[in-house]
């Protein structure tokens, strides 16, 4: 069983992140920034994939969770960082990220519960509204910088932190989905009534998906803030939520590998198209349209299941 070695993969991935981070100053700063954004987008997209792709709850509020994490973490680190300069410094970022994740997770719980009765479009609109409410509230909170934004966030996030979190999120979500416990999410997505009738507490699973997804989005927000050191509410508008949803859909709802690839491609693409500045967004959008028409299930969605392909080639005879 391959899950036996998943802890080893995680260990190797984190170690690699650490090694690479020693050389991060050698990398061209522009490319380096793109690489970090790729990491952050992978965290956002795979965590949203838990809610949208695996648990089947269409959420459009991921940027809201992200901003809660970003602002909470920034508040924590700015407060602690100012007053220190000693060896505990290294603990400031993880602490800030965890608190940011926790606040986002709490919001996930608060959004999760009332939206349980909603499905499809209604749920999407409600979560979209939730994200916008958070943005507007932050815009009016002076101690968070209001519309001007939050400045002077210590630049603590580096390659190591971002890609360790990427590894942890991918590890956590893959383990979850491959486990018998995690099959509950897929059952809720595929048929809620049947899931209940097979003993699944569907309410609990939906809320857990929201809490877990929000937690990781919060952490992604914290990493983002501590990388660019300045955040403002506009960065977390519903456009950001849609960007993440697009990664999930293009990657193929419910395929972790697909969603990771989509996050990479869709982070690089707008940058690669910078040369033709004014047509950039047109081409970007056009590509999305073409992909959606030719592969509505996403690049790696449903019908790209290796198991299934193999099964098709050697379909065993049915026994009576």
């Amino acid at each position, binding site marked *: *069983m391959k*899950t*036996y070695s*998943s*802890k080893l993969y995680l260990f190797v991935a984190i170690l690699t992140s650490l090694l690479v981070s020693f050389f991060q100053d050698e990398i061209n700063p522009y490319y380096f920034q793109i690489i970090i954004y790729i990491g952050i987008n992978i965290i956002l997209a795979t965590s949203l994939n838990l809610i949208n792709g695996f648990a089947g709850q269409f959420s459009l509020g991921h940027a809201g969770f992200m901003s809660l994490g970003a602002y909470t973490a920034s508040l924590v680190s700015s407060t602690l960082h100012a007053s220190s300069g000693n060896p505990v410094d290294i603990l400031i970022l993880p602490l800030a990220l965890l608190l940011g994740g926790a606040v986002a997770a709490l919001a996930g719980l608060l959004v999760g519960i009332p939206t349980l009765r909603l499905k499809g479009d209604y749920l999407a609109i409600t979560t979209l509204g939730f994200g916008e409410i958070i943005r507007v509230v932050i815009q009016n909170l002076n101690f968070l910088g209001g519309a001007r934004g939050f400045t002077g966030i210590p630049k603590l996030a580096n390659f190591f932190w971002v890609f360790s979190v990427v590894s942890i999120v991918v590890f*956590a979500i893959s*383990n*979850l989905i491959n*486990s*018998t*416990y*995690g*099959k*509950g999410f*897929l*059952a809720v*997505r*595929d*048929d809620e*009534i*049947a*899931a*209940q*009738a*097979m*003993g*699944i*507490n*569907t309410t609990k699973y939906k809320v*857990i998906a929201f809490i877990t997804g929000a937690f990781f989005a919060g952490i992604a927000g914290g990493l983002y803030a501590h990388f660019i050191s300045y955040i403002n509410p506009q960065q977390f508008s519903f456009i950001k939520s849609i960007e993440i949803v697009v990664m999930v859909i293009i990657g193929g709802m*419910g395929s972790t590998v697909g969603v990771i690839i989509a996050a990479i491609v869709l982070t690089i693409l707008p940058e690669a198209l910078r040369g033709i500045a004014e047509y950039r967004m047109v081409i970007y959008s056009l590509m999305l349209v073409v992909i959606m028409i030719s592969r509505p299930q996403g690049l790696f969605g*449903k019908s790209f299941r290796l*198991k*299934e392909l193999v*099964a098709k080639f050697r*379909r*065993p*005879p*049915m*026994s*009576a």
Partner: protein
Amino acid sequence: MNILELKECCMKFGGLTAVSELNVEIGSTDLVGMIGPNGAGKTTVFNMITGIYQPTSGSVVFDRQEINDFRPYEIVAAGIARTFQNIRLFPNLTVFENVQVSLNKSLKHGFSHSILQLKNFHKEEHSVRETIMEILTIFKLEGVKDELATSLPYGDQRRVEIVRAIATKPKLLLLDEPAAGMNPTEKVDLMRLIKSVKEQFNIAILLIEHDMKVVMGICERIFVLDYGVKIAEGTPGQIKNNPKVIEAYLGEVVS
């Protein structure tokens, strides 16, 4: 001992009374049939028992415990499993995974154990896998375990649904028109399957079925619903010759 008792159960949808003052008793190893014309309220009875609907009045007693207020998943935990009139397999899951969902409820490990794969996680996952393979082998589905459940022929899908229900280890199994859409050979297989399930697992079965050959062939006792009212109950022989039943069914043919 009765495993299930419906006492004066009513189910109203607005002005429509789908089930009216229904009394039913099922013993712990009975194989009982429920028949009646379309729209008689049979599926509604199942939905009342399994917590999808709450009875408007009356009480559902399972294993000496009133379960009216139980949520559907709590009812499964108490020991009732069901299949659906319109097959409801998980379309994106394989046959194996469809059965795996049913074992979720009896897991000892939860969220954090599954993510961190803490101690005993692998042991329990391993035993879950073994249990699934055992069940699949009993029902001769091990050869298609990695196929999408909904890609199987219709008769096999019905079988997977029954297997999935059994995997929850029920004391009472509710089957909603399991023979619907099957060809005669598949029906014969189904009858054999239902009988063997009852014997192997020593459980009670309540079966809704339109095909009289199937119902009369395997049920020890049958009750008849018409417009939500129980109009007859007895052995297959008694039911066959009951004038009220004949009338209810003739009524359907005419209309």
